[in-house]
């Protein structure tokens, strides 16, 4: 008892000066270091002053476009005025509670699914037969007294999330299949897998989107037209699958071949060995990398604006061109869009680091 009382005090007595000298040597240890500290400090102060001035001190909080034209700061009324358009695009104004509800349901579902403890077959089934159909019904309507909204009216943040999330959900099994094809011992299957993966990885996403937008209709028989949104979605799925395949291949290579051989020796079929022994080990290793890929794809969906889909970046840009606000709040619009992308990407990045730690400790 007496030990525990003395020890903290003793430790404090020793630790505090040490900490202070550590602090001093970290910031001002050598003349060079002191110089670096001063330069960085000045830079941080300058940036903080600029940001503070623009965001709050010189900003316009109420008034219209004219007030914003006079001021050098941020134009908050623009955000208030165009927020709903930027978030939901041309979705009918009175019905915009539906994409909002869909967005909340989706984000809520994602939050719950991020907890490793709830992972399992049940979660997959819940997404497949409850959440996704509800999301679709909310967005498209046509049943339960909801007015039908064609996909050409969909836009904004829900569209961005849909393109990236649905893209990844479908690309994952396809990518795993491609990775297995690439690792197959059957030469023809392997060549087909390698060919598709390298073809897709060798060209920019924009060219695949162009292909989906311009070339795909030519391959369709008479009278069959595929929705433009669906075509872009298919392009994204294909693109994501090739990258996922490469990541999964890395995981497959990390699983010792003895695992596969042992499974076969037990008399299991190829698919049984893969689905019960090899893939669970391989996928577990690559989950952080997959989350990293997902962040990249969430950002890459902005490219659909080039082929004329109204994703979040596109609705923001359209809002900037509104006759009432044209040329007044451009920086505000871009900063808002950047902030939204930053928050979601950074959250996913943090989650990826959490998963890395989570899986690291479970092995020890």
């Amino acid at each position, binding site marked *: 008892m007496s030990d525990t009382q003395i020890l903290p005090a003793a430790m404090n007595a020793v630790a505090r000066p040490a900490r202070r000298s550590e602090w001093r040597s*970290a*910031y001002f*240890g050598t003349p060079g*270091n002191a110089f*670096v*500290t001063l330069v*960085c*400090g000045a*830079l*941080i102060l300058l940036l903080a002053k600029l940001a503070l001035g623009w965001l709050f001190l010189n900003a316009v909080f109420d008034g219209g476009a004219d007030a914003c034209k006079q001021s050098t700061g941020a134009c908050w009324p623009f955000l208030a005025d165009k927020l709903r358009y930027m978030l939901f695009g041309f979705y009918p104004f009175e019905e915009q509670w539906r994409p909002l509800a869909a967005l909340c349901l989706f984000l809520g579902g994602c939050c719950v699914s991020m907890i490793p403890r709830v992972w399992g077959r049940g979660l997959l089934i819940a997404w497949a037969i409850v959440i996704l159909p509800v999301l679709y019904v909310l967005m498209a309507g046509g049943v339960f007294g909801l007015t039908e909204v064609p996909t050409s009216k969909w836009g904004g943040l829900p569209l961005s999330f849909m393109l990236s999330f649905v893209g990844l959900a479908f690309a994952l099994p396809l990518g795993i299949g491609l990775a297995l094809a690439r690792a197959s011992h*059957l*030469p*023809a*299957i392997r060549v*087909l897998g390698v060919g598709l993966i390298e*073809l897709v*990885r*060798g*060209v*920019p*996403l*924009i*060219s695949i989107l*162009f*292909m989906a937008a*311009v*070339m795909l209709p*030519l*391959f*369709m*028989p*008479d009278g069959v037209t595929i929705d433009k949104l669906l075509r872009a979605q298919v392009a994204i799925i294909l693109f994501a699958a090739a990258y996922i395949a490469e990541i999964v291949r890395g995981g497959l290579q990390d699983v010792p071949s003895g695992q596969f051989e042992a499974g076969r020796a037990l008399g299991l079929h190829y698919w049984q060995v893969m689905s019960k022994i090899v893939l669970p080990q391989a996928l577990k290793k690559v989950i952080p990398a997959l989350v990293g890929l997902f*962040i990249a794809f969430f*950002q*890459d969906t*902005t*490219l659909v*604006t*080039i082929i004329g889909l109204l994703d979040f*970046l596109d609705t923001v*840009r359209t809002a900037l061109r509104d006759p009432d606000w044209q040329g007044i709040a*451009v*920086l505000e619009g*871009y900063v808002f*869009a*950047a902030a939204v*992308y*930053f928050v979601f*990407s*950074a959250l996913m*990045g943090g989650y990826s680091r959490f998963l890395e730690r989570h899986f690291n400790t479970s092995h020890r």
Partner: protein
Amino acid sequence: MLFLNDTRFRAVFYQFIAISLVLLAAWAMYATASANLAKQDIATGFDFLSRQAGIAISESSIAYGPTDTVARAILVGLINTIKVSFLAALFGTIIGVLVGIGRMSTNPLLSRLMLAYVEVLRNVPLLLYLFLWYFLIILVFPPVRQAIQLFPGFFLSNSGLAMPALEWQSGFCLTLAALVLGIAAALVVRAVSQRRRIQSGKANAGWIAALVLLVLPVLAVWASGAVSLSWSAPEAGRFRLTGGLQIRPEFVALLVGLMLNLSASVAEIVRAGIQAVSKGQWEAAQALGLPRSRTLRLVVLPQALRVIIPPLTNTYLTVFKNSSLAIAIGYPDLVMVSNTIMNQTGQAMETITIFMGIYLGLSVAISLFMNWYNARVALKAR
């Protein structure tokens, strides 16, 4: 059912089915596509490449006019793509290495600042940054009529930086050949002097000889009088500046966007590479009395290079492919030129095939080159 249990038979059977399915799909696509094209009365084949392009391209490094062929227009686009991706890769790597080293600094303020730099760049889409940089350039600089004159002949405005340029009248190829010759001779001399230095352990004056050899051929060509140059200065017209060398805002926005995006990836790769070098290397170098900066340059970075090269290859491929975002801000790269041609000729299939083929070919070339370089720096197993 007996033969279905034979694994050898099954292997052949599965492969047969896979190949037939692929061939069947390809055939079905080909048949419907050619039927559709015939119905819409769209020409097929690559004849259009030798026809007149009829489009103006705002930026080209080789002589080009609307009366040139489609093939030449595509070449102009390709050169623009290569130009912007090469410069972005070069500057992005330099910035990225510096930021990556800054991330490893013992000064917490510097390392946090560099972390913020990387996070801000990585968590916002590149396309958004391209729009933003482009907008900022247009916003900050005045219109052409009120162009800022930095020095006589240098005009800065929202249509770019215009400056006087030297134009070759004759002797360009000769100078280029002399330059290549000089570089080759200098490399040989450097290799020989380095080998001697390693053998004898003494410093020698090889680098002076190499330097002399580097500039000598070019000087000789110039002294012979085979080269003539002329100045071309930009002149202010009513709506734009003509003549001279013009650096356009689209080019700058794309270059800055790609460069910063790449630098963030490079910084992370460099940091991971430095962390992969074992701590003992730092301590051994310190024990030998090397200061921290020389330890980094002479001991740690060369070893980190082995870890760095493979992911670096991927980022270079990414920057090359990302340069296709040029179309969003109107820089005439391969994709944008192809897109214009596609709209004019209606031959979407051929045009998309051409530019996808070019990207694929160059991607393979870049990865082969980087694999060769990787094999050079890799640890030699003895």
